């Protein structure tokens, strides 16, 4: 028992006091900035393995980006990645970045349903469904609740049953073989409920987008409440994305 206390003492305080202002170490690839520099645009678009870059004007879709960083290596004057991890939005369009702009990625308050803030503002229980996810997003979602990121402090938790959940978090490109289990899980969540897509695979299919082994019909049938880019999503991206969804509207809710 004493040893346990000693270890606890040696570990000190590990939690990140303010997850909305924390800095990520090193050269994390977060929100990219596209300059107006003139480059061979066709070569730039051709380079991207997931067709996230379009030209005329040059735009980069974070919902398709795998954050491999190759564009920034080969076209350093055109594209740079910042460490800004707040890259989620409830508006798919807002994930598309334009050249010459350096704007924070925002929520679209008009798209946030009234019941989300009213019912889930202080407590949001989520069921996670991996539908072809490669286990990296899944591990980052687990990390969101470790002693460092400690997402539970905001009343946001992952729960074991859809019956206990207020919504689902989907990772992975949604395989044909997971299409039915996903639909059944969603149906088992009591209404009102939300859907969060975590990671490039879930948002656009990522590198698997044109695979015949996928079935993404689920996404055409239901409204998506939040898109969280990343490959995988960083725990801070996830936590801030969900916090923004819950508190942006009204703006009078503060966290202790």
């Amino acid at each position: 028992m004493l040893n346990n206390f000693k270890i606890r003492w040696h570990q000190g305080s590990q939690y990140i006091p303010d997850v909305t202002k924390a800095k990520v170490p090193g050269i994390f690839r977060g929100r990219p900035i596209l300059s107006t520099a003139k480059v061979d645009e066709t070569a730039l678009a051709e380079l991207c393995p997931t067709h996230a870059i379009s030209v005329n004007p040059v735009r980069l879709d974070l919902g398709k980006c795998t954050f491999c960083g190759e564009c920034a290596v080969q076209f350093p004057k055109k594209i740079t990645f910042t460490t800004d991890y707040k890259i989620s939005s409830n508006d798919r369009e807002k994930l598309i970045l334009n050249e010459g702009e350096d704007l924070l990625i925002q929520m679209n308050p008009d798209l946030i349903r009234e019941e989300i803030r009213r019912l889930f503002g202080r407590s949001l229980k989520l069921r996670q469904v991996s539908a072809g996810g490669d286990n990296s997003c899944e591990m980052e979602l687990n990390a969101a609740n470790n002693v460092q990121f400690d997402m539970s402090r905001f009343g946001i938790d992952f729960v074991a049953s859809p019956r206990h959940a207020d919504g689902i978090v989907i990772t992975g490109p949604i395989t044909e073989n997971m299409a039915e289990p996903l639909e059944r899980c969603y149906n088992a969540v009591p209404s009102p409920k939300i859907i969060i897509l975590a990671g490039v695979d879930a948002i656009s299919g990522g590198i698997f987008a044109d695979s015949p082994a996928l079935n993404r019909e689920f996404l055409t049938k239901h409204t998506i409440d939040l898109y969280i880019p990343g490959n995988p999503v960083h725990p801070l991206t996830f936590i801030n994305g969900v916090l923004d969804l819950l508190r942006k509207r009204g703006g009078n809710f503060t966290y202790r």
Partner: protein
Amino acid sequence: MKPTEYIPIKNNQVIALKDIPEYDYEFFLELNVGFLKDNPARHCVNYFGFAAGNDVKLICCMADDETHVIDVSSSLVGHTAVLPSFTAQHPNFEKFEREINENFGIIYTDHPWLKPMRYAHERADQTQQIANYPFYSVESEELHEVGVGPIHAGIIEPGHFRFICNGEQIMHLEIQLGYQHRGVEQLFLVKKKLLERTTLAENITGDSVVGHTTAFVNLWENLCGHTPEPALLWARTLALELERIAVHTGDLGGICADMAYQLGESVFGRLRTPIINFLQEWGGSRFAKGLIRAGKINFPFTAELADRLQTVLNTYEPDFDEMAQQLFSLSSALSRMEKTGILSYEQLLEIGTVGMAARMNALSRDIRASHPFCLYETLHHEPIIKHHGEVYSRAQIRRLEIKQSIGYIRELLKNVPDFQKPMNATFSPKASAFVLTLVEGWRGEICHCAITDAKGELVLYKIKDPSHHNWMALAQAVRNNDISDFPICNKSFNLSYSGHDL
């Protein structure tokens, strides 16, 4: 023909496809099954079919850990062939033959477990649906079944576990996978650009990004006759050992979680963070996505990074040692780990278990030692071997391998090589060639194989994650254990769903 006529190849060696000897099926069967007989240093690293017109070319790759070669042979059979199975004579081939059956429709008359493997989209029989998997069942009023999944209670990948229990005791476990199937192997052929293929390799399974990507780039460079600068091999070795430390640490936390030892869960869980954060400092991703590239590295390792990594390890190690010391001397923890989920040496051999899960009970399977790649030959790697085959051994192996990896990293950091600026090399794959690559990831042996056509285009890309073998080890290990011990058994293996389903 004498049953020694294979083509022996080294890890990463490229050969002409036509140089793989082709035998009639009966001889091919005897040859490969006979190869395993009474020799624990030998096992099947890959066995697959390759569509050749109206026929299927079966290619079998048998590793011999003593001679450090992989013996390759083949046989041409019809699409509608009805054949005796390898599996009836040696269970090593169980999964491989199920895959051949699923993909091509070849029937095995005496395969004891001929069920769909992953319900791949290109399966021969499209009427087979994942919802109708033929589970084994027992008619008895005393036994009951417990079905778990495909969606699990935690945040993990999907798969279905069907237990047959007598009261609390597990009599039988059947693990049905395939939910994660994304068609990775097919996409390797469809997507022609190197970066697309590298990205695919990085997304095979997120816990082994370095492992699978290293396998791909080693394969690709060799297939294209490209000799990488030594610094790249150094970086891959370093990244592999960092990945091993990170996952092993997280797994020790998971094992603690599954025995409700919260301090261990928290401390090991948080100790994983500085390691993966270092990967981010080096390459911009906590999972090392974007780090390993064929012919180059976009993030050269620097003297500053070397200092930083020394500091990270110097702070990690005492914390890790203290926690591990406590975990492995806590009687309540030991009583949960000891004699739980045991597999005997003989069972491991039959299953063809690889990697850490083989080393837990005297079976030395470690590609770093037996078929060395990257810098492992110069590190003189000695596999860590335990002898009890249970959760305790699997946890101990992690503890010792973490320490060993830290030692290797310190060794590597003594000579940080000079890195060139990232330059794109040109790659042209050899035509009509076959290449096989083995990498020891943290979980075990990763095998990638490729075949090119007369123009040098990829016409086959085969991936085998260590989980391919080891899922059966988990299913066998839980027999006669209480069902409440399933989570800790499962975590002690920590197998990949996406790596299996592809």
